[in-house]
């Protein structure tokens, strides 16, 4: 049955945010996908679209902080999920969103509570929120240990903060956590087979978008506002949507025309396409994924971009030798499944969902894939390992372990020569490695390692 107009009129941006948050919580839906989907289908005025995005991401990102405060005012485990979520959403606005007046937040929350409880819970919500507002100053003045304070300020779990601190020190850990709260910028990668820089900027301008060139990468542009995936230029394959950090994988791989390249965890195909573009449409990039629908996604992307040198196929990266002859690729890329600790600003739910055990579970898979991929590299060829996570367990430790077991591979001493110096100068990089933290360039946290296979003399 249809929702009739009298109910539809009560739909507002906070209600929509609440429903979206509930869906993410109940179904474990990825927040960025769901937010985009809602923005596409919901009939919200443009001004509310920004608020909607901010409410959903903000509430998710600050969840543990919000819960810590709420637990002093309500019995968390006895509160219905929708009510708890409504209180989180409202508290987020009271504490962190200065542009919304407190009385408006309370009023809206009470109305939503009344609607959802047939009037019963309006005064309860009113009481809780007013109580918290009375103590706002005290709440915001928190002290304590580094991890506790940072956890409170930035809503990361303790283990994650300690892990960042162990890996990068207190100062960097703080910067990582703070930068994870900044909403992500959309960046795009120009398709050199379809357009030029000047042409793309002009075309986007015609469509009402403003893009500015990145300071470091010639094919990278940053979007000012709006969703570029909805543009005509995207449809016709003039560019891909990709984060700047992950563009560095093609720099590290540096494939030449006519080469045979394997991207063994290829979906959705962003890096695959970048490699194929750098090969000028020649040679062959085999891009695999274990799920059929993701293989179709790679195919769709290749078609949109007009890249005929991409072969998308089904395959398990853990047993590559069953599908390809040994030593049959010039370059093999392992963009491994990972915990995503570098992309928290895009997927804040990672903070709640991932545990330390996950890192070790993933490490095992990463090692397996790398081991299987190594066998397909030609003598003198390149093996590239990348993740969108930060921290040694899934990165440096995987490489160390691999090198111990495979003495015929060494770190690629020529890697840094292929990376733009502006990027290299940000931090001290080890030979054959590239580490990007999210606050370095306001891009994804990323790890890349390039290895070379010995030439048989």
């Amino acid at each position: 049955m249809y929702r009739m107009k009298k109910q539809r009129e009560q739909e507002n941006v906070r209600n929509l945010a609440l429903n979206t948050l509930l869906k993410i919580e109940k179904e474990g839906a990825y927040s960025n996908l769901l937010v985009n989907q809602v923005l596409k289908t919901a009939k919200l005025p443009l001004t509310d679209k920004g608020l909607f995005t901010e409410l959903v991401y903000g509430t998710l990102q600050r969840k543990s902080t919000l819960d810590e405060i709420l637990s002093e005012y309500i019995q968390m485990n006895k509160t219905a999920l929708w009510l708890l979520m409504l209180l989180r959403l409202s508290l987020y606005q009271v504490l962190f969103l200065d542009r919304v007046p407190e009385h408006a937040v309370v009023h809206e929350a009470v109305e939503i509570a009344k609607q959802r409880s047939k009037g019963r819970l309006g005064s309860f919500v009113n009481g809780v929120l007013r109580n918290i507002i009375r103590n706002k100053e005290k709440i915001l003045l928190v002290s304590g240990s580094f991890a506790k304070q940072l956890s409170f300020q930035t809503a990361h779990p303790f283990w994650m903060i300690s892990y960042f601190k162990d890996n990068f020190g207190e100062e960097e850990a703080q910067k990582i956590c703070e930068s994870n709260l900044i909403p992500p910028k959309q960046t795009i990668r120009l398709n050199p087979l379809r357009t030029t820089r000047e042409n793309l900027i002009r075309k986007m301008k015609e469509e009402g978008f403003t893009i500015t060139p990145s300071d470091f990468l010639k094919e990278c542009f940053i979007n000012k506002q709006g969703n570029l995936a909805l543009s005509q230029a995207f449809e016709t394959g003039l560019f891909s949507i990709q984060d700047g950090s992950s563009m560095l994988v093609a720099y590290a791989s540096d494939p030449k025309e006519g080469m045979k390249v394997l991207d063994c965890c290829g979906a959705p195909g962003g890096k695959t396409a970048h490699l194929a573009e750098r090969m000028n449409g020649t040679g062959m990039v085999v891009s695999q994924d274990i799920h059929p629908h993701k293989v179709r996604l790679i195919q769709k992307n290749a078609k949109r971009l007009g890249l005929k040198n991409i072969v998308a196929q089904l395959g398990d990266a853990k047993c590559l030798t069953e599908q390809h002859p040994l030593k049959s690729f010039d370059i093999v890329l392992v963009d491994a499944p990972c915990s995503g600790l570098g992309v928290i600003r895009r997927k804040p739910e990672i903070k709640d969902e991932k545990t330390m055990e996950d890192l070790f579970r993933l490490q095992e898979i990463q090692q397996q894939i790398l081991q299987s991929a190594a066998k397909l590299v030609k003598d003198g060829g390149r093996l590239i390992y990348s993740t969108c996570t930060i921290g040694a367990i899934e990165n440096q430790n995987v490489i160390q372990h691999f090198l111990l077991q495979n003495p015929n591979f060494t770190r690629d001493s020529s890697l840094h020569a292929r990376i733009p110096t502006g990027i290299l100068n940000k931090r001290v990089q080890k030979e054959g490695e590239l580490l990007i933290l999210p606050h370095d360039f306001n891009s994804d946290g990323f790890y890349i390692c390039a290895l070379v296979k010995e030439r048989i003399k």
Partner: protein
Amino acid sequence: MAIREIIKYPNPILEKEMRIVEQFDSKLKQILEDMYDTMVAYDGIGLAAPQIGLDAQIAIVDIDDQHGTIEFINPKIIAQSGSQIDIEGCLSFPNLYGDVRRATYVKIQAQNRLGKPFILEARGLLARVCLHEIDHLHGILFTSKVVKYYQPEELKDGKH
């Protein structure tokens, strides 16, 4: 997530008695997930299996209240009382709206996605939506119960 196509009147499946569900398996779970995605995508507050072309006694209802999404497998109405008239629309009849008389209170027995029986008591709008969807499972369309149709322009005055 999969959004299915909505079957529109006069497709004959909409006027058939649906089959009883006997298998409570992962396929059923997938159907329920798809029905939810479809209902949300089309701005519905209820959806019945025949509306996505499935011959099965499955319906879901979600009016954004504290009940959340209610999933009915093989539902039966075991009691109803009262009478209310209000406007309804159906995803299988785009742009058609009419007043329908329904009970104000209904007691429903059904099974959940695991096959476990439960009883739900509903009032007001929730009762209305449940009755509308359960009707679908027996091939009964709201058009057979409409007491007054609305002209499209009547709906613009903000009354509804």
